[in-house]
């Protein structure tokens, strides 16, 4: 039998290596033990798949004990008493309701074995391109598919390729932006860790189309496993002649390089990324000239995101029309989302454009955790916005999402329930953009800082009604005045929360109250006299000395001294401390 253990970063963090080690020790040697990347059902990790002929047994949340049971069942060839550890029908629907193109091999093949990839028509598409198609035909096929940049902006891929192709000069560069910096998005990491050859093949096709002889992957340094697997994949592809000189005996040659990013969110902006590739501070350049005319080392360059490239080989194999059949009028194909936050089933979801947010969150994602109420979904990270419940039937489409004030973004979808403060959320993102602003232009550098100060004032209970007007004014001038996408979109989290959750702002300002109990300054604690045993634990923990009471008698918190830190809440073993 073939046994595969999911070993993406999240699988490993959940304990996949332990399960693998147990299986390695206990399985009879005539079985094939291997590993895959991430299948995207992160909430069920670690996952072990057992292929018994055509039958698949998928075991979830595999601890060392369960791994031992799996090994025994495999060794005796009988799975009759293993049902309780297998995936439930309800959880099976998480995968079966998806349409997987970019993620088609994720969790299915071993990412460190090129044979697995070749076995599923791998490198057929680049062969077809270089032996049967002209670069113009390749670009035409991508045009028919309607593929648009999956990094967030949604710019048509063919257009960028065509511009780079038509630029003068024989030295051109194809660059992959794998600097996935959006907090809350991890689809690019999953693709590289689980299916690096798909990325390489997509990039080879892009390089052929624009006429580049060198391809560069700019990957985040925070993703060590992705870098390791990508390096290995590049070596394997070189050995088999898919990378290098005269690929498939043609005169198309292409070399690959990996450059590790060094941790700067702004490097997701393409001209900042180029600056970083050149060894400088990642500060955006003024456009035009666009990278297609003057990019890396001032040569024509084309930059696409990982997910964009992951679709390319499929499009060449199956035809652009088939891709364009999926989706809406303006957004074609599928999109991968990283569904996280207060959601029951968190993980990677790939669905055709045109489905609604409700389909994803309440259908595939199984709704909100712990029976709580949905409040908002944050899309597009620091450049995006929070979408409220009333707009859950919005279809997933670049235009429709932009109309809400959020953006499609790279695909982070962070779900929030009633325990999340929306002012706090806006502050969280501004804190991020203020720190990540490169400092080149004044509106972004100073504007985000001033906005953060206002938001901090509001969550500290010192906000005034004028602050909201000032915030809106700042938002608009930063949008207009900032040089690059980071600054232009930085106000979005504030604008959307102001638009849909203005009440929460007003409540903070007028009533000095945070309904989500998240803002520390507004939190008031009290001790339930019936539950208090007088153990003195809370009084000893209180950093402000706000709690009084003799041992074995009921304790009391002085609200005038209390700083709302919550130390007493975690110190109490009897559940006597309550938040008002």
């Amino acid at each position, binding site marked *: 039998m073939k046994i595969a253990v999911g070993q993406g970063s999240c699988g490993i963090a959940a304990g996949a290596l332990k399960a693998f080690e147990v299986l390695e020790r206990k399985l009879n040697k005539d079985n094939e033990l291997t590993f895959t990347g991430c299948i995207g059902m992160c909430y069920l990790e670690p996952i072990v798949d057992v292929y018994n002929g055509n039958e698949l047994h998928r075991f979830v949340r595999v601890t060392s004990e369960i791994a031992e049971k799996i090994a025994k069942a495999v060794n005796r060839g009988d799975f009759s008493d293993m049902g309780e550890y297998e995936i439930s029908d309800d959880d099976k629907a998480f995968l079966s309701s998806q349409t997987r193109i970019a993620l088609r091999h994720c969790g299915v093949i071993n990412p460190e074995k090129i044979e697995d990839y070749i076995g599923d028509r791998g490198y057929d598409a680049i062969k077809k391109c270089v032996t049967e198609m002209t670069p113009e035909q390749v670009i035409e096929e991508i045009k028919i598919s309607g593929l648009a940049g999956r990094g967030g902006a949604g710019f048509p891929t063919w257009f960028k390729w065509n511009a780079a192709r038509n630029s003068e000069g024989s030295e051109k560069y194809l660059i992959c932006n794998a600097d996935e910096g959006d907090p809350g998005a991890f689809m690019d990491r999953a693709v590289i860790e689980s299916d690096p050859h798909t990325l390489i093949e997509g990039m080879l096709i892009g390089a052929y189309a624009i006429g580049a002889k060198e391809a560069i992957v700019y990957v985040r340094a925070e993703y060590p496993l992705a870098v390791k697997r990508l390096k290995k994949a590049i070596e394997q592809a070189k050995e088999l002649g898919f990378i290098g000189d005269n690929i498939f005996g043609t005169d198309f040659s292409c070399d690959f390089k990996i450059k*590790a990013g060094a*941790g700067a969110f702004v490097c997701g902006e393409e001209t900042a990324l180029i600056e970083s590739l050149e060894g400088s501070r990642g500060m955006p350049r003024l456009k035009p000239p666009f990278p297609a005319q003057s990019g890396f080392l001032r040569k024509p360059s084309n930059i696409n995101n990982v997910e964009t490239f992951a679709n390319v080989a499929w499009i060449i194999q199956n035809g652009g029309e088939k891709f364009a059949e999926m989706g809406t009028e303006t957004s074609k194909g599928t999109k991968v989302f990283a569904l996280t*936050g207060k959601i029951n089933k968190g993980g990677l979801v790939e669905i055709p454009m045109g489905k609604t947010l409700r389909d994803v969150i309440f259908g595939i994602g199984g709704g909100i955790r712990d029976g709580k109420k949905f409040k908002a979904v944050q899309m597009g990270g620091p450049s995006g916005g929070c979408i409220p419940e009333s707009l859950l039937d919005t279809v997933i489409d670049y235009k429709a999402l932009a109309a809400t004030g959020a953006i499609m973004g790279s695909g982070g979808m962070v779900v929030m329930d009633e325990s999340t403060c929306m002012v706090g959320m806006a502050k969280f993102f501004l804190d991020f953009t203020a720190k990540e602003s490169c400092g080149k232009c004044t509106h972004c550098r100073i504007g985000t800082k001033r906005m953060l100060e206002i938001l901090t004032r509001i969550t500290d209970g010192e906000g005034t009604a004028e602050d909201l007007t000032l915030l809106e004014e700042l938002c608009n001038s930063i949008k207009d005045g900032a040089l690059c996408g980071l600054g232009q979109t930085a106000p979005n989290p504030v604008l959307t929360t102001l638009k849909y959750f203005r009440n929460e702002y007003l409540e903070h300002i007028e009533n000095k109250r945070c309904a989500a109990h998240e803002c520390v300054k507004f939190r008031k604690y009290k001790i339930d006299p019936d539950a208090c045993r007088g153990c003195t634990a809370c009084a000893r923990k209180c950093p402000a000395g706000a709690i009084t009471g003799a041992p074995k008698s009921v304790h009391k918190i002085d609200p005038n001294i209390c700083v709302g830190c919550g130390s007493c809440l975690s110190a109490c073993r009897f559940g006597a401390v309550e938040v008002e």
Partner: protein
Amino acid sequence: MNFYESKVDSDLTLLEPTLEKYGDAAENLISVLQSAQEIYGYLPTDVIIHISQRMCVPIVKIIGVATFYSQFRLTPIGKYLIMLCKGTACHVNGADGIYEAISEYLNIKDNETTEDGLFTIKCVACLGCCSLSPVMMVNDDTYGTLTPEKAVNILKTLAEKEKNQ
């Protein structure tokens, strides 16, 4: 700070293979700095001066790059680098509480190192393990679905291990 008055005395020969491979092109500066940091644990001043001379890149440019990217450090760090994720999903799931707990336990703040040189806390934007949030990485190991107690216990175990060695 006068750069040339640095008191460190790093073994510069360790960097030689890197400089031979990348040293001739200024565009490789970030790769060289990454490699240097891997060797020395941070970017000591004498190493920066050496890189500047070998690559013909002004010191001011190197400092500019090193302070721009969050990966680079100009001071040494503890044996265990705790990278606490403060991404959106971790934020929503209580990363602030984890920070408070480990910061109280170790008695240090973000970007500080304990007196015994064992632990450094660094808050980072997103580690990409959002479905296991809240998450932290200690050196190369990732720990997910943390609670304040769980996070402190992980550090206690590491400290205990060090004591017994």
